[in-house]
């Protein structure tokens, strides 16, 4: 349940994708996602998928782990697929079920949509798998730093994100402990109707909130003791530098975008 969340998970490695500048990686991932929505036919989408598969091979992240990230949103994928399968308008009828007709266009759209969502999720997971949470927040901080002009405390936001990510595993462990303690006192978490189950969560949520606040206080004190003030003048131990590697990937994405535009243009007659 909680363990299926893959966002913020990191797969250690030294591949080209791991060594890329996280800022460039984020921007390119955003472009990639953006372009997915511009694909008008299977050729364009296939090009995107091929590029993605290439990226996965380079990264060295096991394909299984990426599929795991799909598991969490499987329901959405399936519903989108089914809706498109039954309700796409037009095309030749392949199968008449009485209440709904399945047309060839429906089948195409369903597959198209499913592949599109899969690419979307796997693409963004690939980025988080190859970037440590700290690097990610650092990069986001840098990318958002122009907002400082509007008096937005970008570094505070980034620190909040870092802390939130940092505490996910801690909280999971904490929930586990509290659940065991209450189970040992006979708490029944598995049976009963919806209301009973919701009530059964109280003995878990209250201690969880209490300990979260306690942790927050302790952390705040510890940070203050190390003179953290959240000012803009903090320097960084690791400086981010662009390299030829980043240029390589930028060119790669540029080629991909051009390819998609060309395919969209030349194969308009195909779906």
């Amino acid at each position, binding site marked *: 349940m909680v363990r299926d969340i893959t966002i913020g998970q990191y797969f250690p490695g030294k591949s080209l994708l791991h060594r890329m500048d996280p800022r460039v990686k984020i921007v390119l991932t955003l472009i990639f996602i953006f372009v997915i929505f511009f694909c008008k036919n299977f050729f364009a989408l296939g090009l995107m998928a091929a590029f993605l598969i290439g990226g996965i091979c380079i990264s060295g992240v096991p394909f299984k782990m990426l599929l795991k990230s799909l598991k969490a949103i499987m329901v959405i994928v399936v519903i989108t697929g089914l809706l498109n399968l039954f309700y796409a308008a037009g095309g030749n009828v392949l199968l008449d079920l009485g209440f709904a007709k399945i047309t060839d266009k429906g089948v195409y759209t369903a597959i198209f949509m499913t592949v599109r969502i899969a690419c979307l999720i796997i693409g963004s997971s690939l980025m988080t798998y190859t970037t440590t949470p700290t690097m990610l927040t650092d990069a986001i901080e840098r990318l958002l730093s122009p907002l400082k002009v509007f008096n937005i405390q970008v570094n505070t936001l980034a620190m909040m994100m870092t802390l939130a990510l940092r505490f996910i595993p801690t909280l999971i462990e904490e929930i586990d402990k*509290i659940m065991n*303690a209450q189970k*040992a006192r006979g708490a029944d978490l598995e049976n009963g109707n919806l209301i009973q189950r919701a009530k059964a969560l109280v*003995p878990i949520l209250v201690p969880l909130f209490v300990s979260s606040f306690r942790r927050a206080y302790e952390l705040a004190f510890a940070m203050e003791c190390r003179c953290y003030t959240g000012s803009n003048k903090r320097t960084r131990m690791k400086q981010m530098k662009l390299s030829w590697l980043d240029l390589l990937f930028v060119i790669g994405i540029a080629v991909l975008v051009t390819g998609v535009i060309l395919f969209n243009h030349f194969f308009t007659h195909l779906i």
Partner: protein
Amino acid sequence: MPVISLKNVTHTYGEGTPLSVSAIENINLDIESGELVGIIGHTGSGKSTLIQHLNGLLKPTSGTVEVDGENIWADKKKIRSVRFKVGLCFQYPEYQLFEETVYKDIAFGPKNMGLNEKQIDESVRRAAKYVGLKPELLTKSPFDLSGGEKRRAAIAGVMAMNPKILILDEPTAGLDPKGRQEILNMIKSYKEQTGSTVLLVSHSMEDIAGIASKILVMNKSRVAMYDTVENVFSRASELEKMGLNVPQITRIFIGLKEKGINLDTDVYTVAEGGKRLLSLLKGGMA
């Protein structure tokens, strides 16, 4: 008949993955009724995994756990009744408090057992007495109590279920010496008053030596020793190899004996050690 009996119990975390770890391996153990067993072992020796098997929070990967001669996993639906029979109090139990009042929190266990109002009231008041919580504290919010009081309220929450077997994981962790002694005395008197079996996990040899009738030593996922206090501490060098120590006062006596002074080394408390030394000195002077 032993009250708890483990046969070839093994538990592997993450079985089937490359990260699988055996937390306990092939444990065979019989605990007789009425014992006060001290469980010691290094961090990661499998103590916590072991005790979570005794009330069915963890299911053994292989092997059987019997409580009162019955396999606790024979009927999955009855696992809750095992938890009432084997009360388990985790480390830092004060973090599990959640109710509006101390009374309600202690009543959580008995309520889950399905007792009626009167029985619940009796259980709560009896448990509060065992741990030495003043009746006026029962109406307070558990979050307004002091650290030591919170700890005692949480332990009372487990005692209130009137378990036949009480397991406490590091009940003295993070307390000052006075608090530690109070908790240990409380456990001892609880055991004497109720006649229940008590298992006490601890890092401190001194704590265990003072009150336990038997000691269970865990080492590298296995039971290294399970014997009387004297027999376990007489194997001081073996314990040291496991990175464990006998109580400081016992070490002094072992050291004195090695220096050629004729005395017995079955001394586990400072008070007892003082007496022995005094009588030895008096004897020497006479």
